[in-house]
């Protein structure tokens, strides 16, 4: 006697590579304000990104992971989330951070080697800081979502993880808990085809990342991560579901990492120029720009103004960032515990005496 248990994941896409609709667009496309705001954020993100890379090249910033190719996904996340939701990012979520209200200056501080980059997040004080150990943030996301469930709140969590990260136990254990406990969390697995030099194909034998949801009893969706409408619709739906107590969702957002892994990497070692060129042909910012043009919502003058605005915003942030002095070395012990334990007092005194009053 045989029975068959069937499962599926859907994939969705609205815009072709040139920004032409392939299908009826979702309702959100009618919200011109939202779409324009999204576009502006994507451009600002890309402008910022180029600047940070330049700072790094001139020794004014540390190792930095470019967001190139992720701008659409992050923007959609930032827009779909409510202020009261909690964002649990990974390290390539600059576009979302902009909309969550993390200062550009803070982002610069962080990558500039200053802990204060994760400190003063006054617009999103509950959001988690960047998590460097891959996929570990997924456990935090289900913890935050558990707290919401325990307290009966109508809020949700969005957690990002890379395609590489979906191989790590933390992600897999976490989606399982999300399914077992019906937690209000949306996992966004950003499949940019690479984990440093490791291609998506070596990461897993699964045909899609979205189908990992099935192992946890969750709905899984695959969306074109360069299609603003597709990703936004998937996020809106999943977040509504989560806030309404209907449980978690895994969204695989497919894109391509257009830059090196970080400024310390050289991607030409492991991928071809043709691959990269093909990926640029699917760029989500260009696609949305085309769509805006086609719908008379955008023109060259507006583009020029936006570029200038974005540059000015970024320049101001860089100026602010460069003006900030390093913390005194005593900061390295002062935030470890709520109150400095007696055992650390002598060490703190040594720091003070070594650095004349704790100045660096």
């Amino acid at each position: 006697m045989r029975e068959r248990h069937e499962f599926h994941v859907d994939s969705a896409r609205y815009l072709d590579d040139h920004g032409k609709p392939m299908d009826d667009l979702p309702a959100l496309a009618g919200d011109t304000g939202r779409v324009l705001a999204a576009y502006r954020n994507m451009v600002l993100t890309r402008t910022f990104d180029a600047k940070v890379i330049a700072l790094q090249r001139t020794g004014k910033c540390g190792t930095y992971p470019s967001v190139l190719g992720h701008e659409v996904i992050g923007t959609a996340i930032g827009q779909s989330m409510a202020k009261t939701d909690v964002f649990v990012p990974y390290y390539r979520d600059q576009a979302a951070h902009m909309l969550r209200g993390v200062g550009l200056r803070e982002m610069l501080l962080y990558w500039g080697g200053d802990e204060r980059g994760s400190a003063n997040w006054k617009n999103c004080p509950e959001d988690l800081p960047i998590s460097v150990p891959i996929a570990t943030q997924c456990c935090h996301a289900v913890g935050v979502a558990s707290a919401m469930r325990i307290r009966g709140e109508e809020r949700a969590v969005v957690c990002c993880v890379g395609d590489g990260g979906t191989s790590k136990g933390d992600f897999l254990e976490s989606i399982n808990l999300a399914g077992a406990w019906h937690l209000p969390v949306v996992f966004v697995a950003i499949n940019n085809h690479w984990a440093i030099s490791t291609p998506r194909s070596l990461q897993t034998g699964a045909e899609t990342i979205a189908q990992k949801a099935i192992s946890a009893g969750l709905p899984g969706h695959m969306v074109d991560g360069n299609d603003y409408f597709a990703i936004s619709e998937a996020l809106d739906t999943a977040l509504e579901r989560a806030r309404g107590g209907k449980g978690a969702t895994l969204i695989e957002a497919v894109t391509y990492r257009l830059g090196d892994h970080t400024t310390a990497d050289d991607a030409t070692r492991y991928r071809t120029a043709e691959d990269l060129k093909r990926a640029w042909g699917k760029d989500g910012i260009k696609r949305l720009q085309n769509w805006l043009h086609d719908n008379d919502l955008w023109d060259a003058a507006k583009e020029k103004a936006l570029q200038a605005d974005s540059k000015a915003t970024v320049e101001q942030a860089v100026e602010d960032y460069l003006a900030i002095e390093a913390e005194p070395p005593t900061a390295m012990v002062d935030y470890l515990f709520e109150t400095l334990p007696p055992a650390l007092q002598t060490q703190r005194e040594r720091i003070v005496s070594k650095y004349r009053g704790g100045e660096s």
Partner: protein
Amino acid sequence: MSKGELRDVTLVEAVNMALHWEMQHDENVVVLGEDIATNGGVFRATVGLKEKFGFKRVMDTPLAETLIAGTSVGMATQGLKPVAEFQFMGFIYAGIEQIVSHAARMRNRTRGRLHCPIVYRAPFGGGIHAPEHHSESTEALFAHIPGLRVVIPSSPQRAYGLLLAAIRNPDPVIFLEPKRIYRAVTQSVENNGEALPLDTCFTLREGDDVTLITWGASVTETLQAADKLSHQGVTCEVIDVATISPLDRETLLCSVAKTGRAVIVHEACRNGGVGAEIAASIAESAFLDLQAPVVRVTGYDTVMPYYRNEAAYLPQVEDIVEAVEQVIAL
């Protein structure tokens, strides 16, 4: 705090009592782990909590220690105070990345914006005739990690007071419960919600000739050795370190300044055990006070044997006596 009911309880019952008290008085306290709700924990440490506080606050998790450790971090950033149980210390290892890289650092990383008031509980130590991996005492691994507190009670009263303190502490605490003495003795504990300090060693017995420094289940053998030695006219000061990290060096150094001699006793293997830090600190700071080298009585530098031979691994009363005789002779 108001006067509370007096109860004769074992160490594990004191743990349970503290959990009840704090869950009753602070709705942010939640408890999670494997088999801790319906079953009340494999050692019964969490028995009754689910009935009283419900499944929302008393959570049986899937079998996943990374998750237990990391989910607690997420909960804590929302202002909950998770008390997470690892069923045995031998199964805490999968949780280490979350504990070391996140729980211990969230406050520092965010300059205080978020913090992790988590207690990670685990029964630890050998001597209960359990299978492999059920006898670990690797407290040294956690003691070396900045941002963590490591606390080990060795009596029902200290279990009650230290666990309350650990839960109330705004930073993560590794709370290790010596399971060999979970039910060894009962002690009268006042259920009054009074916490003990988290940065002070406990002097269990005063003496002039030698300072015996220990913690966990080894406190039992150390006190027995002190008893034996007193019949030989040697008076031992016995200190239960209890708050392993950050370490209260003050109390230890004061005692050694008086006695001039120290013997450290712990169950963990010697190489790089917490005894090394204590010995190094004493030898450095009490150099001129010392009449004899600081000696360590510890487990051997090997894996805890399966149970037929576990007694041969554990430090015994006579090992302690012998060590004291040795340092006294100098």
